[in-house]
């Protein structure tokens, strides 16, 4: 495209001051390989849609992983979702929806030649993106502190008084201060000679400031959610500072028995496994290196699984007390019919076993476990999928931010007009796709029930 040169006035349809073509009477922004502006616009749009098609398919790969794991281990997913805060997820959803509105409106502004509105709508969108990333930062900080990581590093533990989540305040101050400085620098720059770079730097400042704001808002929401849960299970176990992961934990401690009973009942398919199941619940797993035994399988291998489970009841005599104190999220009454009883106990077992396998198990039982004995899917697998999906999505948000900074540079250069606004629309389409992916991610990850 011949437009990248600093052409201040794109509305001059017959600008011919581009590298020696004195005699063309086409707009400066019309690339030579297109016959008309119309064709250029349509080709650009088609190209972007084809790219979006590819993006949809590659996210579908991640969704397939999600679908297969969820179909095979539904109770793991039901338990694991307790670790996520749906309020934060909903907040992020609204933020992205607002950014989509802003970008759609920006396209309208470009079509109507409203350059200043076009610019501010893009800055607003970057603000929304920063806010989103700030919330993500808080979510990830708590996950890391609670050991809720991908399968190989899954090591659930109680929230303590140390860890990343205690650094969020510092992070906020640093990011906000830096953002204000950068924003001011950009603001002054754009009033001077470097208008375009000034806007870019100002926008980076906006991103930093809104990220800081997101951190504050998200942390407030997270803390109040944790306290709300604490209040509901006040009788629980006197632990303080539970993270989101502790939701299931508190449920486990106060409803351990009910959980057992419910799991025994809820499982119609394995009435014969009732006793074994209850034994399992109590179980945990010092020796449970072996316990996790058979995974919840889809169908048909219950017999094998049941047999294997019943072979180990003798080991499952641990009292519930220690488990209750653990991340006994599986204790959460899972009325999931598809989950076998072993399945229900598996996540607890897995969580326990994994925890014990992990070098820094919060409460280590006696059994020395050489390697992490994880048999089958556990919450760690859920978190592998969670981090893969939200992580890749976050990378797309970063890429979108960079694309928007480029567009902001060009808006400041007055590249766009009602005759030429293709890039605005195309980057906007990309951003809508990022929003679309989140529209699916949110209910599938945060609202499993």
């Amino acid at each position, binding site marked *: 495209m011949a437009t990248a040169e600093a052409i201040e006035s794109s509305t001059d349809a017959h600008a011919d001051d581009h590298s020696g073509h004195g005699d063309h009477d086409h707009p400066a922004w019309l690339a030579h390989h297109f016959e008309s*502006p*119309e064709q250029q*616009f*349509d080709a650009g*749009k*088609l190209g972007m*849609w*084809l790219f*979006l*098609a590819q993006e*949809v*398919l590659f996210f*579908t*790969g991640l*969704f*397939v992983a999600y*679908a297969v794991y969820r*179909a095979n281990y539904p109770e793991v997913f039901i338990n694991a979702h307790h670790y996520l805060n*749906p309020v934060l997820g*909903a907040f992020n*959803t*609204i933020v992205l*929806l607002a950014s*989509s*509105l802003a970008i*759609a*409106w920006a396209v309208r502004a470009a*079509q*109507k030649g*409203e350059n*200043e*509105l076009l610019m501010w709508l893009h800055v607003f969108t970057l603000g929304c993106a920063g806010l989103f990333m700030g919330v993500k930062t808080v979510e990830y900080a708590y996950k890391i502190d609670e050991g809720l990581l991908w399968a190989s590093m899954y090591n659930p533990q109680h929230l303590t008084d140390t860890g990343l989540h205690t650094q969020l305040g510092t992070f906020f101050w640093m990011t906000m201060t830096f953002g204000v400085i950068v924003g001011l620098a950009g603001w002054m720059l754009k009033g001077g000679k470097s208008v375009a770079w000034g806007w870019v730097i100002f926008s980076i400042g906006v991103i930093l400031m809104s990220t800081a704001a997101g951190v504050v808002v998200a942390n407030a929401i997270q803390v109040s959610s944790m306290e709300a849960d604490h209040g509901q299970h006040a009788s629980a176990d006197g632990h303080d500072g539970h993270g989101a992961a502790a939701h299931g934990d508190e449920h486990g401690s106060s409803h351990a028995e009910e959980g057992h009973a419910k799991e025994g009942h809820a499982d119609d398919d394995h009435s014969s496994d009732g006793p074994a199941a209850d034994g399992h619940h109590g179980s945990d797993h010092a*020796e449970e*290196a*072996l316990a996790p*035994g*058979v*995974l919840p399988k*889809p*169908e*048909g291998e219950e017999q094998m699984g049941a047999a294997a489970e019943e072979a180990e009841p003798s080991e499952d005599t641990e009292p519930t007390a220690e488990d209750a104190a653990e991340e006994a999220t599986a204790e959460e009454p899972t*009325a999931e019919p598809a989950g076998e009883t072993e399945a229900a106990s598996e996540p607890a077992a897995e969580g326990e076993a994994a925890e014990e396998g992990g070098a820094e198990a919060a409460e280590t039982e006696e*059994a*020395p*476990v*050489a390697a992490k*004995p994880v*048999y089958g899917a556990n919450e760690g697998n859920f978190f592998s999928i969670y981090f893969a999906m939200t992580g890749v999505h976050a990378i797309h948000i970063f890429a979108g931010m960079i694309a928007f900074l480029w567009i902001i540079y060009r808006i400041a250069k007055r590249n766009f007009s009602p005759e030429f606004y293709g890039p605005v*629309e195309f980057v*906007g*389409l990309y951003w*809508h796709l990022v*929003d*679309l992916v989140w*529209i*699916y991610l*949110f*209910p599938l990850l945060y*609202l499993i*029930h």
Partner: protein
Amino acid sequence: MSSQATDHAHDDHGHHVTSITTLIATFAALVALTFLTSALAQVNLGRADIWVTLGIATVKAALVAVFFMHLAHDKGFNAVILLSTLGFATLFICFALMDKGQYQPQIDDYNADKRQAAAEMSGS
């Protein structure tokens, strides 16, 4: 800054300009559906759960695609691209799900081996 709120005007090239009313209405619908899906998370609909969730998400996606992404007023081929992509994505997920139990024997064998090894290691 012109501000015809409800114009369905076309710009110089005949491209449709979305009205502000349409934009705001779409956004409002999207937010409402977000609250709906969050609220429905508290309700147990049994086996319909996942379908209702996906259904609401798809309605939201359709709103974004048709109005924000302008598919309603675009060249039809762009919509064909999106719809066929969704079709292939569905095929992808369906085929994978059809196979989901297929490798269970191998998984069970692997786990049995692991269990065995662990048992031997802990000398039980």
